[in-house]
């Protein structure tokens, strides 16, 4: 651009540039001629400290002796314009980043008279950018990353993503995200809403099931993060993901095992309950009469169950007579006899009379020989006798009972 204004305008223009830029002038050999206030403030020097010194005071000593640095000044001497972000050293060795242009000033003969450097300090932006870049690099190295346009078409994916999903970059770029989901979901309203929300800038995170190139299920713990332009408009979506397929499979296996264990536990409980029910079949056989036919071996746990079940049934049915038939009990020893006495005593405390039926002659002798207090229990030889007696106790009687029936049972 060639300036065509008058001298006053030129001075005003130079003043404006001077106020808004850090400016320093060098000889073609790099010696400092002058610098403006902004440059001096930026670098922490006074003009007297730098005037006449070489530009190399602003660069690292190693760089100052390098061929690269020599070439840099050779180019300027030849009139080549240079512009870039430069790291320079301020007073005391403080690093300063300058976005600068080195402008050779040519004389009427076309030779370079001097070099003017116009600069803006960008240290903070540079550090911030480096910080962000470092973070992005770290994420890219540790996570699967894929970027989409807001319509779901794929911009790029990193190597981790490509490796996990089994694709080459060219196989996915430009295609839609739906290539990673099953067809049914891709056609659903939920999927359309998923992308509509992202396009509106809504963040999404969770566990997502996706499918790799071979069609195998892949579980990703992922975030879909909309990226906004300076006006706040979403311009793309970045997905950061971890592969959690192994954990999900492990969880599924664990859940299946747990469900199996719970089912087995349930079955076992039902079986236990059924066995318990079968082992203590307290049955109402008449109004006010309960019958418990005992079969098998009696131990303390079963006797305890019998007592609890019997008392509950007596309470529930308001039974007046409880018939305990032991004709199916294999052996009656002292412990069993005492348990039977306990049950009869307990039923009596509930206001219910107990009759123990089904005593064989051998068991009767055994009970006597064991020294059990037989006064405390009401017994009959057969269940029929017990039932007949129970009917009498509740105010009923058997019609058609033979007159010469002998009462073989003993009633206390």
């Amino acid at each position, binding site marked *: 651009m060639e300036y065509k204004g008058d001298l006053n305008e030129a001075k005003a223009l130079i003043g404006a540039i001077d106020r808004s830029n850090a400016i320093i002038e060098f000889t073609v050999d790099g010696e400092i001629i002058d610098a403006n206030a902004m440059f001096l403030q930026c670098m922490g020097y006074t003009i007297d400290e730098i005037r006449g010194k070489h530009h190399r005071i602003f660069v690292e000593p190693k760089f100052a002796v390098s061929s690269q640095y020599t070439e840099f000044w050779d180019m300027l001497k030849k009139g080549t314009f240079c512009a870039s972000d430069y790291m320079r050293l301020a007073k005391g060795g403080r690093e300063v980043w300058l976005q600068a242009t080195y402008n050779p000033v040519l004389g009427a003969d076309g030779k370079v008279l001097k070099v003017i450097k116009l600069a803006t300090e960008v240290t903070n932006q540079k550090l911030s950018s480096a910080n962000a870049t470092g973070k992005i690099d770290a994420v890219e190295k540790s996570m699967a990353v894929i970027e989409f346009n807001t319509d779901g078409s794929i911009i790029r994916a990193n190597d981790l993503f490509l490796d996990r999903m089994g694709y080459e970059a060219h196989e996915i770029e430009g295609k839609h995200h739906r290539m990673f989901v099953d067809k049914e979901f891709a056609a659903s309203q939920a999927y359309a809403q998923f992308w509509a929300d992202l396009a509106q800038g809504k963040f999404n995170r969770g566990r997502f099931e996706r499918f790799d190139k071979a069609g195998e299920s892949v579980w990703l713990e992922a975030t879909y993060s909309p990226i906004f332009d300076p006006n706040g408009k979403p311009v793309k979506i970045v997905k950061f993901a971890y592969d959690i397929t192994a954990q999900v499979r492990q969880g599924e296996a664990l859940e299946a095992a747990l469900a199996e264990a719970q089912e087995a536990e349930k079955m076992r409980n039902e079986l236990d309950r059924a066995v318990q029910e079968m082992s203590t079949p307290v049955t109402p056989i008449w109004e006010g009469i309960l019958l418990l036919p005992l079969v098998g071996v009696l131990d303390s746990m079963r006797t305890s169950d019998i007592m609890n079940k019997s008392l509950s049934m007596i*309470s529930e049915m*308001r039974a007046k007579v409880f018939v305990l038939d032991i004709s199916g009990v294999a052996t009656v020893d002292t412990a069993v006899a005492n348990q039977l006495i306990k049950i009869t005593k307990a039923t009596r405390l509930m206001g219910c009379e107990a009759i123990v039926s089904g005593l064989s002659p051998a068991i009767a002798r055994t009970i006597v020989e064991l020294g059990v207090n037989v006064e405390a229990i009401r017994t009959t030889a057969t269940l029929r006798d017990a039932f007949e007696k129970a009917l009498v106790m509740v105010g009923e009687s058997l019609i058609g009972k033979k007159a010469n029936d002998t009462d073989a049972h003993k009633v206390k």
Partner: protein
Amino acid sequence: MSVNSKVAITKTQGVIVVTMHPDLDTDDFNAMCEAVLTQIVKSDIKAVILDFSAVDVLNLTEFNRARAFLNSVYLLGAETAIVSLSAGIVVYLTEVQAETQGTNYFFGLDEALQRFGKGESG
């Protein structure tokens, strides 16, 4: 008739019904005993019924105390009964081998009154 708020004593059909309450202390129990025994001596009482329907927990000492009182009642010529013992109390008394002879037991008050109330043979 009531000795205090913890013991309700009711006379019906010639029978005294004592409604036992939980946590009855010795003084209250003794006051109840005295009131019931005095009543037996003064009037024609056929039976005394201790109703435990409001008692969920009963230890052996409390049970023996009640039985001793009923033995006193028996000596004064009245029948005795304990009604509405819960299944839990019954199991406990059986396990601790409590002495339970010497009185009558009924499932509920109705059965006891049916047995001992006026007009019944007892």
